[in-house]
C-alpha cells in the first residue's frame, strides 16, 4: 500500500505486574478505513485502546499517529514555562524567607504616620535590605525556590507528556465500553464539552462575556446541534444525559467524540446491549462517519456489525494478535474460527 498509515501500533506490550495484557501487538490502520479489533473477552482489546489513547503508557513498543508518537514536544514554551516558574518561585521564596526583615526595612522605616509615602525611596531600600541579611541567605533561598519551582514544573511536564488530553488534542477521539457520559449535563452540553479543544475563548473572555464569547457561543451551539442531528438526537438536546435510554446514550457518546473533529475515532463496543434495529442503525451511522472522512477503529463482539462494516479486521486472543485481514479472510482463517468465531457461531 502506498498510503501512509494513519495509526501504527508497533509491537506494543502492556504489562501489569506479572499480568501481560498485550504482547507484541502490531497493526496499522489506513486512513478512511473502518478497522475492527475483535477477540474473546479478556483478550486485551480495551487495554489496547487505553494504550492508544494515553490512559496507559505501553510497557514497550510504540503507538504512532500520522507517523509520530503523540506527545508534547520539547519546545520554546516548555523552556518558558519552566524558566518562568523557576524565577517566580525564586522571587517568592526569597521574599517569604526575608518577609519580616524586608517589611521593616522597606515599609516601616519609610512610613511616618500621616505623611505621604515615598514609593521610589522605599523601593530603593530593597537592595540594601537584602544585602544586609547576607548574600548566602538571599541567594540560597532564591536558588532553593528556583530548584523547587523549575524542577516541579519540569516533572509535571514530563508526567503529562502523553496523557489522554494530549492524545485527544492530536485528533484521536474515543467512546467507552461502559458508557461514561457527563450525566448531570444536558445532551447539548455533553457535545459542547467534546468541543472543548476546538473552542478558544479564555477564562476572562468567559467571565466578562466579551464579544468573542458571544461569537463562539452561537457558532459552537449551532455546530453541536448539527452533530446531534447527525446522530439523530436533536430532539432531546436539552434533556439530562443520564435520562436518555441506553441506545441513545451510546449515540451521544459518538456525537461527543466527533465534536472534537477527530481524524481517528475509537469505538469501544458501540453495539453492546443494543437490539437488532438499533444495531442496524448503528452500522449505518458508522458508515456515514467513515464517509465524512473520519477513520474508525472499532472493538466489537457483534459479528454482524464487524463483518458488515469493517474493511479490515485484527483478531486478538490472550493478548496476542492471531490474525489480520479482510472480513473474508478472517471468516476462513482456521485460527480465528477456533479461537472465536467457531464458539460464537455455535453458541
Amino acid at each position, binding site marked *: 500500500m502506498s498510503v501512509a498509515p494513519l495509526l501504527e501500533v508497533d509491537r506494543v506490550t502492556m504489562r501489569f505486574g506479572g499480568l501481560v495484557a498485550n504482547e507484541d501487538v502490531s497493526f496499522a490502520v489506513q486512513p478512511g478505513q473502518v478497522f475492527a479489533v475483535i477477540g474473546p473477552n479478556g483478550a486485551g482489546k480495551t487495554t489496547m485502546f487505553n494504550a492508544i489513547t494515553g*490512559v496507559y503508557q505501553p510497557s514497550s513498543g510504540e503507538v504512532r499517529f500520522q507517523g509520530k508518537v503523540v506527545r508534547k514536544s520539547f519546545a520554546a514554551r516548555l523552556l518558558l514555562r519552566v524558566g518562568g516558574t523557576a524565577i517566580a518561585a525564586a522571587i517568592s521564596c526569597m521574599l517569604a524567607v526575608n518577609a519580616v526583615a524586608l517589611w521593616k526595612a522597606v515599609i516601616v522605616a519609610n512610613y511616618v504616620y500621616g505623611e505621604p509615602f515615598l514609593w521610589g525611596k522605599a523601593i530603593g531600600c530593597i537592595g540594601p535590605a537584602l544585602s544586609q541579611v547576607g548574600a548566602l541567605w538571599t541567594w540560597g533561598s532564591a536558588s532553593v525556590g528556583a530548584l523547587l519551582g523549575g524542577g516541579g514544573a519540569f516533572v509535571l511536564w514530563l508526567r503529562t507528556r502523553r496523557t489522554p488530553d494530549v492524545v*485527544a488534542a492530536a485528533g484521536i477521539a474515543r467512546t467507552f465500553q461502559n458508557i461514561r457520559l*457527563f450525566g448531570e449535563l444536558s445532551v447539548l*452540553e455533553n457535545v459542547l464539552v467534546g468541543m*472543548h479543544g476546538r473552542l478558544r475563548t479564555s477564562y476572562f473572555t468567559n467571565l466578562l*462575556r466579551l464579544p468573542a464569547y458571544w461569537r463562539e457561543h452561537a457558532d459552537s451551539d449551532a455546530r453541536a446541534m448539527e452533530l446531534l442531528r447527525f446522530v439523530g438526537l436533536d430532539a432531546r*438536546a436539552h434533556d439530562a444525559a443520564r435520562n436518555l435510554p441506553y441506545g441513545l446514550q451510546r449515540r451521544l457518546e459518538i456525537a461527543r467524540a466527533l465534536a472534537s473533529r477527530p481524524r481517528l475515532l475509537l469505538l469501544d463496543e458501540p453495539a453492546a446491549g443494543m437490539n437488532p434495529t438499533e444495531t442496524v442503525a448503528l452500522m449505518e451511522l458508522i458508515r456515514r462517519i467513515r464517509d465524512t472522512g473520519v477513520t474508525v477503529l472499532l472493538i466489537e463482539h457483534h459479528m454482524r456489525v464487524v463483518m458488515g462494516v469493517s474493511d479490515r479486521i485484527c483478531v486478538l486472543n490472550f493478548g496476542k494478535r492471531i490474525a489480520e485481514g479482510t472480513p473474508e479472510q478472517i471468516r476462513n482463517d482456521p485460527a480465528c474460527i477456533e479461537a472465536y468465531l467457531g464458539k460464537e457461531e455455535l453458541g
Partner: protein
Amino acid sequence: MLLLAAAVVLGIIDGPLKLGLVDPMRGVLIFALLGLGLNIVTGFTGLLHLGMAAFMAIGAYAFAISTCDIYPFQLGFWPALGVTAVAGALAGFLLGAPTLGLRGDYLAIVTLGFGEIAQDVLKNLDAITKGTQGINPLPPPSLPLFGEFGSSPAPWYWLFLAITVLAVFACRNLERSRTGRAWLAVREDELAASCMGIAPIPVKMYAFATGAALAAIAGGMWASLYASTGEPGNYDFQISILALCIVIVGGMGSINGVLVGALAMIGVANIALPKLASWLQQKGVVNASNVLGSPNNWKYLVFGLVLVVMMRVRPDGLLPARLERRKAGGSA
C-alpha cells in the same frame, strides 16, 4: 431574579418598618460570597475543600493592609477589594499548584491543613499582621453612591448586595461557558473529560483560584464591616465547615441554592435564634443566666439538626442544581 427582587424590597422597607433585618443580612451576604467561592470548587469541580476560612483570612488581611492608615498603601474600597481578590487568587494558585494532582480525600486533608497553617502564619508574622491583635481600625469606605457609612447598616447592606450581585453574575457567566463546562465535566468523570481534550490540572487550578478569590472578597467585606480583621483565630475550621454547610444545604453546584443556603444557615443563626431567645426570655421560660438563654449556645445544635434532616429529606439541597439547570434550558 426573585431573590434579588426580594433583597431590594427588603432593603427599601426595612428602614420605615423598623424590621431590623438589614443589620444581620450583612453577615448573610458575606457568607453568601464565601459559599459562592466554595460552590465553584466543591459544587462545580467536585473537589472537597475544607480550608476556605484560610482564603477568607488572607482576604481580610490583604484588605486591611491595603486600607488601614498604619500602613502606607491606604487604597480606596474598590481598589483594595481588587487587591484582595488578586491576593486570594494567588494564594489559591500557590496551594493548588503542588496539590491538585491529588485525588478526593487526600486533597481534602491538604486543604484542611492549609486552613490551620494560614491561621498560624498570620498569628506569628506579627511584624506585618500585628499577631493576635488583628489590624484595626480600618477606615469606613467612602462611597457617596451608597450613602454615609456610619452607624446605619443600610449603606453596608446596599454595598454588599451590589458585590453579591456582581459575584453571582460572574459565577453564572463562568458556569455557562467553556470554562465552567470543563469544571462540570471534570466533576462528572475526570477520565472521560481528559479523553475529550480537557487537561484536568489546569482546569482545577482555575476553579481553585476563582473560589479563593471569592472567599478573599468575603474576607475583605468582613474586615471592612467590623473595621478590623479580628484575630487570626477567628478564621478557623468552623468557618470552613459553615461554608460547606451552606453549599450542601443550598444545593451543590447551584448558585441560587448557595444564596438560599446562606440565608438558611446564617439567617437562622443571626436572625431567628436571637429573636427566639429574647422571646423565650420575655415569656419567662428561660432567664438570661440559663444555658439556653443565649442563642449561641444552641446554634450548633440547630445546625447539626438541620444537616441531618436535610440529608434525610432533600439530599440534593434546598434548590438542587439539576432543577436549576432544567429551568435555564440546560444550556445557554
